[in-house]
């Protein structure tokens, strides 16, 4: 992707190097004797429970990494290691090049007050404070004067569409509204890094869809660096720039949604991708062939269009289509044969 090629030259915002989180007494001994990931039997023998097993990855500025896994896969633990709500057993984590694990509590507080925001599964709103006070909370904690905090919080209330309810208490709001407050609170200090721990899991399916759209809308204008945890594969596909699939603390595959659907790395990942309607996930670029002027047809299709949205017109077309890229002034970048689309739609 374009973003990748541009930003890979820059320093990553979040960088993890073989992060381990092991619960139990013999954790350190276990780590000393091993190199790379540790197998499940070894953990069982040592009487330890694995949270995160040798996780290494980078997240770049403006990128959204979705960590997907079933319950107990260690995805929330990984998130908490990176926000340092729990201390990893070993490994290195860098935030904007600074070593997170070597920060003292004062530096950590500074980092959280200015750079990080987090949204929680169960909303985690303070029950005794109103919507407005909840959103203003991080600002007041930071030491901003009350007036400034409240007016900033009021902006956030409008941003998440809760105007008119700012004096409600959390218990008076629906789940979706409560999570809007959670989102507004996490954004109030204008953080660079945004952590979301299963933010929509506690919501009804319809509300969840609505909140996802809302979330994408926000991200479109805010461009935060995001780490998003979910157990819902469809949600991951919908939102992610890249997806990390976790099982038993190990990251099984970390790739773009297209690549995961097309080339699942392990049997485990394959189980998720099997039932995914590909036409709803894949973009044209993932099934096109390289551009060759001789084969190009007169009809064009955009490179990042989702197949489903353009399938009908492609199938109507008798000849090959030219794939063009809007970001490069509609320069042709590939060729698409209509039969490929049929394969995606009905093939295996």
């Amino acid at each position, binding site marked *: 992707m374009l973003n990748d090629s541009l930003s890979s030259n820059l320093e990553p915002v979040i960088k993890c190097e073989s992060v381990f989180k092991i619960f139990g007494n013999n954790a350190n001994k276990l780590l000393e004797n091993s190199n790379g990931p540790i197998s499940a039997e070894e953990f069982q023998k040592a009487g330890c429970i694995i949270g995160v097993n040798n996780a290494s990855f980078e997240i770049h500025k403006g990128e959204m990494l979705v960590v997907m896994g079933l319950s107990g896969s260690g995805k929330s633990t990984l998130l908490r290691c990176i926000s340092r709500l729990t201390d990893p057993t070993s490994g290195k984590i860098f935030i904007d090049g600074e070593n997170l694990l070597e920060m003292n509590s004062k530096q950590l507080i500074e980092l959280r007050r200015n750079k990080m925001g987090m949204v929680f599964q169960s909303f985690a*709103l303070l029950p005794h404070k109103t919507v407005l006070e909840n959103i203003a909370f991080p600002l007041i904690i930071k030491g901003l004067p009350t007036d400034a905090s409240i007016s900033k919080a009021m902006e956030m209330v409008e941003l998440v569409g809760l105007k008119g309810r700012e004096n409600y208490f959390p218990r008076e709001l629906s789940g979706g509204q409560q999570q809007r407050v959670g989102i507004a609170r996490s954004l109030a200090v204008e953080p660079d890094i945004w952590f979301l721990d299963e933010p929509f899991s506690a919501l009804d399916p319809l509300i969840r869809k609505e909140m996802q759209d809302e979330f994408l809308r926000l991200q479109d204008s805010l461009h935060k660096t995001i780490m998003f945890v979910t157990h819902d594969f469809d949600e991951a596909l919908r939102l992610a720039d890249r997806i990390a699939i976790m099982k038993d603390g190990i990251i099984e595959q970390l790739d773009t949604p297209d690549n995961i659907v097309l080339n699942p790395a392990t049997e485990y990942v394959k189980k998720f991708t099997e039932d995914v309607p590909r036409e709803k996930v894949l973009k044209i670029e993932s099934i096109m062939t390289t551009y060759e002027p001789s084969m190009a047809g007169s009809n064009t299709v955009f490179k990042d269009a989702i197949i489903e949205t353009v399938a009908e017109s492609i199938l109507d077309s008798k000849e090959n289509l030219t794939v063009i890229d809007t970001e490069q002034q509609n320069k042709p970048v590939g060729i698409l044969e209509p039969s490929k689309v049929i394969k995606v739609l009905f093939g295996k």
Partner: protein
Amino acid sequence: MFDVIKNSRQRQFIFLFFIFLILYFFIPKNENSYLWRLPPLLKNIPLMFNALLDNLMFNWFTIPIWDPDWQMYEDKTLFRIVTRSISNSVLFFIIFIREIFLGGYQTVSAVLGDGLTKTFSWLYLPALPWTAVVIGAALIGYKLEGIRLAVIAGIGFFYVSVFGQWEPSMQTLSLVLFTAPVCFILGLSLGIWGYLSKRVEAALQPILNVAQTMPHFSYLVPIVVLFGVGDHAGSIATIIFATPPMVRLTILGLKKISPEVIESGLMSGCNKFQLLFRVLIPTARRDILIGVNQVIMQCLAMTTIAAFIGAKGLGFNLKVALNSLKIGKAAEIGICVVIIAVVLDKLSLAWANKQKDYFANLSFFQRNRLSIFFIFLTIICSIVAVISSYYFPKGFNYLYLIPFNKGLTVSPILDAFVDWIWNTFFYYLNTFNIFLLTNVLGPMKQAYLNMPVVSTFVLFMGAGYIIGGIRSCLIVGSLILFIALSEYWDRTLITLYMATFAVGVSAISGIVVGSLCAQNEFASKSILSLCDFFQTFPSFIYLIPVILLFGITDTSVMIAAIVYASVPATRYTVEGLRSVPPSLHDAGSMSGVSKMQRWRLIDLPLALPHIMLGINQTVIFALMMIVLGALIGTEDLGQLIMGSLSRPNGAGIGFTLGIFISFICLAVDNLIRTWADERKKLLGIN
């Protein structure tokens, strides 16, 4: 046969009871047999306690202190200096608050000194007229919540003033206004400490248990020895009694906070202090507020008891009225205590729930209109008071201060009513009373006294073993052993008999009433608020109507204990039954159960663990009331504890016997709690 017993707990209990009966009937009554009574090996504990106190106060660590009056060094013990200075500081605060309420001129001269007030005669300020104080209370109520609280506060203070209880009420209030905040701060800090450190919590737990289950009377004498007699001693006794629930509720509330809320605080960048005061404590507010409510109630409940060691106020007057059997007067004063309790409770709750308005753009006058209103009305009231002094040239200025016992009173009417009841129902009441004493209580008491000590142990330790294994068995056994090795085993048996009877009746009535009320929403809510209402009464209030009906007998104490102890039994029954999931009711209905079957087969088994926790409370409540019953004369441990108040070396006996009562509670608590926890785990209720 043993296999069957091994597998069924019910049969284990039957088997245990069978052994108990065999031992009961076959162990001969022989004063020299250890099977009958254990030797009083521990009879020296009270003496040792006395010696310890004595040593601390008069011998240990003496330091010479210059005495300016005698122009010489005097040896004083460190401990005594410490306790006396605590006494003096406590007394200072109480008197200081009291001055503000009752003072006027006195307050000014207390602050500025006599010299100034004598020079400038305009400093000779009168105290606020009672009318102004009533308005002030109503305005505070209005500001905190609204018109409803204003009416409650206003009427409350109006009653107190008009019925001539102003002065003692303010004395009591000043005691409470010092003691309650101290309990709150102390309890909150200890609770937070216990929450932060597991070790501290483990250390606090037994201390809290003993402090909460020990009857108030038993630590009065030690306190008098340590701190002297007076308001401060009453305050300190109250602090010991009222702090534990605060600690407990603080720990409970903090533990209930979901980890995500704490994480959200951390991610907002809270440091430790901000996390504690902005996130943890406010989030646990519900439980902490219940703690505050408990503290206020306990403080007012202690007023009469504190009167035994010299605290002034309503409690003292109530005690005098009860002692001279002026039922009408006692009832009036009792109502004052209840009113102060209710008003303080509501005000503190409203204050904690007060919301802040960030967008109100108010002018100075709008923001302070209530204060301005108050000052204005105070001036008017004062003018009225001055004018009225011409109307009441001799005697009392009723629009300024209604002196003690010179206000309105309905006590003649109440007394007449009491007389009428006595004259009309005496025969029936007395017949009932005598029937109960001769046919139920008397034989029961004899049966308890005829119980060999070994069979008692078998019963308790066996129950412990069946319920909680060897651990519970040993805990319960050692708690009781401590009592059995003293000289007071027979007295303890009398206490036990009263407690068993009271708890039995309360439990049955509580479960029956609770079950009936739990059948519908409205009745449940009503009975729960009725329970709340009854719990705001300080415990001794219950004694007033029963003396009125049954005179000074065991029956009175018993009935007071039953009424008082039924409250938790009822409350827990309703709560337990209401928490049974409705889906289970539906499942039951679809299986075609009748209402009775549903109650017996679905509701009761599921609610029983919670109900048993209520019974646990019932035991503590009943024992408290039985000991308190010594106020009107019984012959159990309570009477000895009361007696120790007037004995020169009573500290040791009072304290030891208090510990005994506490141990009985703890033994029962261990059995019930172990059972309920296990049962809850089994049923998957948390």
